[in-house]
């Protein structure tokens, strides 16, 4: 196996002792097929046990290990070293406060995610005896792509609007609201529209599209947001020009 010496420049910050973040460089002997997360695990196991970062599955499913790798929001378990130069800079996801080292405070996202009610609100309650909520493959296809979100928050780091306007509900949460709004079994759209058809909701999006570029699961949140804009525009015209059509 070929080995490669990588210089890992890692942002360190300990709120108890540091007044501001600093970079610490580790020289890591890496195997050719490693990802950046493997290199961080090597540091933690062999060089510096005080380094803090989140990770769990190592296979782009859990969404925990998002970091800025050479300035780009990336899952460190998907960032193969063969695609990077010998010096790699690793920082916590931008637009989030740092809790410690590469660990960010994600309360803002969790609160927004909660606010858009990202769960099925059944159109009509069914008893168990009445059986399951049925759905055709065509109805599933309308939103399946948006179910693939793993809440990794790379899109929030990539989004310049979220960096500029922290109140913006942001790509993943709105895309997930759209996922449930598009579900034929769901009846909660009006409740979610109260949250996402607002200025801080979808209308803060200027369609930069960076969210879709960094999304590791190809959810394409930018497309979801544009679809929300179209649907909200149709709503607006219905509510204001055809008030008699409102139920």
């Amino acid at each position, binding site marked *: 196996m070929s080995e490669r010496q990588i210089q890992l420049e890692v942002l360190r910050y300990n709120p108890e002792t540091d007044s501001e973040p600093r970079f610490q460089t580790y020289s890591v002997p890496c195997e050719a097929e490693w990802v950046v997360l493997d290199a961080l695990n090597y540091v933690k196991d062999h060089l510096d046990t005080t380094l803090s970062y989140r990770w769990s599955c190592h296979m782009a499913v859990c969404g925990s290990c998002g970091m800025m790798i050479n300035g780009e929001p990336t899952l460190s378990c998907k960032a193969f070293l063969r695609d990077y130069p010998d010096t790699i800079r690793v920082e916590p996801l931008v637009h989030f406060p740092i809790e410690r080292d590469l660990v960010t405070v994600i309360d803002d996202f969790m609160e927004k995610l909660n606010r858009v009610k990202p769960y099925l609100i059944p159109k009509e309650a069914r008893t168990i005896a009445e059986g399951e909520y049925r759905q055709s493959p065509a109805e599933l296809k309308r939103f399946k792509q948006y179910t693939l979100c793993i809440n990794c928050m790379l899109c929030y780091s990539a989004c310049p609007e979220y960096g500029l306007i922290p109140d913006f509900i942001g790509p993943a949460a709105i895309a997930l609201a759209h996922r449930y709004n598009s579900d034929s079994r769901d009846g909660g759209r009006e409740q979610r529209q109260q949250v996402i058809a607002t*200025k*801080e*909701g979808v209308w803060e999006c200027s369609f930069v599209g960076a969210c879709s570029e960094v999304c590791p699961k190809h959810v394409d949140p930018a497309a979801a947001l544009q679809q929300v804009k179209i649907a*909200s525009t149709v709503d607006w015209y219905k509510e204001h020009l055809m008030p008699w059509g409102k139920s």
Partner: protein
Amino acid sequence: MAKSNKPIVWGLFAAGGTLTAFFLPALIVLTLLAALGYVPDLLAYENMRAFAEHWFGKLVLFVIVSLSLWHAAHRLRITLHDFGFRSDTLIASAVYLVAALGTIAAIVYLLRI
């Protein structure tokens, strides 16, 4: 939180964008053809004039001209925002005013034909 009224301008922007996506390339090709001296008979002055004199022709021209203006106005507003100009109220007022004036001008000129 109240629902936003942005759909007013965004609706015009989206409709205008859909139209210009189809018409702008055709206009560029036709303009180039005309510049090179090839004016198809269908686009000769008399034919275009007759088209603009008919009420349906007026309606088509009005929809294309005005929606393209609203599209351009909103596009410019967002582009300026992306370039770092943050005085959104001023910019929005200015670009939409131009689009509104253009819309009125289109009505006036089309009715005069």
